[in-house]
């Protein structure tokens, strides 16, 4: 593993090996440490990515935690830094600080049905956990991936989803908010897929990642289905400048989203979800 420099604010140089366009505004980058070191992380953690001269941005890791040879990020270009990231290509360098934050407790879910609920680009932070679960497939009951996207054109990791759907040991449900006749899949919000079930609520662990509003409704739907709040995990997002609890920006009630999160157990934060402007 690349040793973290003593100062947590110093980025470590990585080289971009491969850039793959996922959607019109979303891309996946694979990078390796410039010093040739390995990188280990837990599913759900994030890195602070530094684009030289532009700035830094927290991005979840979307690769396989078992693969320590590289670090993979899937990013949507929305701000100045992510747009600058988008402009980089293989061979360019990037600064990395991390990994930071809490992880999806995949091992704690052994013996349960495992339900992944993702919305939009929220599938990216879940992907490492899906990899990890499938590498330990026998430890789980059913493995269900429920995914909602805006339109069929906005479906992230489409090929991978198709591949997963083709497996006999994995249930994949995809729905879009809007479609035209060319689309033969589900149309509707992702909560509807949750409502359809296909898992044993009493023995289910759910990992939810997407926009905050979506997670709120999904968590409520899971609860309605009978899944205990303590078995639901969500991944939060707040302004972050340091990633390691020093800058104070990501505070959310008593929590620092960067170090107490981003992955939170739902029962611990459910009350805070409904407080405005917290």
């Amino acid at each position: 593993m690349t040793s973290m420099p003593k100062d947590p604010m110093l980025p470590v140089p990585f080289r971009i090996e491969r850039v793959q366009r996922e959607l019109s505004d979303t891309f996946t980058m694979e990078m390796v440490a410039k010093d040739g070191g390995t990188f280990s992380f837990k599913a759900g953690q994030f890195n602070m990515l530094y684009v030289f001269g532009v700035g830094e941005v927290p991005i979840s890791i979307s690769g396989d935690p078992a693969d320590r040879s590289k670090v993979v990020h899937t990013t949507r270009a929305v701000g100045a830094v992510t747009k600058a990231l988008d402009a980089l290509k293989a061979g360019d360098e990037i600064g990395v600080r991390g990994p930071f934050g809490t992880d999806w407790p995949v091992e704690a879910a052994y013996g349960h049905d495992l339900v992944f609920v993702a919305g939009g680009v929220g599938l990216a932070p879940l992907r490492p956990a899906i990899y990890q679960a499938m590498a330990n497939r026998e430890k789980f009951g059913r493995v269900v991936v429920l995914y909602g996207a805006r339109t069929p054109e906005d479906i992230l990791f489409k090929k991978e989803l198709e591949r997963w759907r083709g497996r006999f040991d994995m249930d994949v449900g995809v729905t879009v908010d809007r479609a035209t006749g060319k689309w033969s899949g589900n149309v509707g919000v992702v909560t509807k897929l949750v409502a359809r079930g296909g898992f044993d609520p009493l023995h289910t662990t759910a990992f939810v990642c997407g926009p905050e509003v979506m997670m709120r409704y999904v968590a409520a739907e899971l609860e309605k289905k009978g899944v205990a709040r303590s078995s639901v995990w969500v991944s939060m997002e707040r302004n972050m400048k340091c990633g390691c609890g020093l800058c104070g920006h990501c505070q959310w009630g008593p929590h620092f989203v960067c170090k107490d999160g981003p992955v939170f157990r739902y029962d611990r934060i459910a009350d805070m979800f409904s407080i405005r402007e917290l």
Partner: protein
Amino acid sequence: MVQTETLGRVIDEHPFFQGIDAGLRELLVGCAKNERFEVGEFLFRNGGKADKFFLVRAGTVAVEVDVPGKPPIIIETVGEGEVLGWSWIVAPHIASFDARAMTLTRALSFDAKCLLKKMAADPALGYEVLRRFVPVMAHRLQASRMQMLDLYGPDGEDRPAKKVKIEVVKAVKGSKGKNRKADALLAAPEKPLKATRKADKEKASKKQKKAG
């Protein structure tokens, strides 16, 4: 008789009428029939009479709206175990969307006229049916509101510093001395500097002669 039994079992097994009182179920059976729709076939059409509702047993149905000049937009898909159509409850009983089978679809359809009559006659049945429809409608409403939120839509940082609000500004009346020429530079974008305002100039000099 065989058919009635079969229909009764189908109703029992469908999540929508799960646990319904056997007597009421029998009343339902009287208005139900099995239907089958090929891919592309419409279950009902926008503007058409809403004289049925469906319990989808297999397959997927697209609830869609036709947009002139564009492919129809699917608002929602309804699949196995779900109920389709509620316009039959609400006057004037006209469907407001198209329902099209996306895959081979099998469904139990209920004749609205028949059912409404029975519901009117037997308030217990009426209550039971509506009791089951209301949550479905509420759920659909919530879902469509969430769709409207466009949760995954772009919300980037690139916003102009300030929204343009054109304010009505009045020029001072009677001002004729057009001795401002800064804008002359800009009159023609392709010739930013050279463009002149001859007319203004001439006016100005005429004015001056008069004044002098």
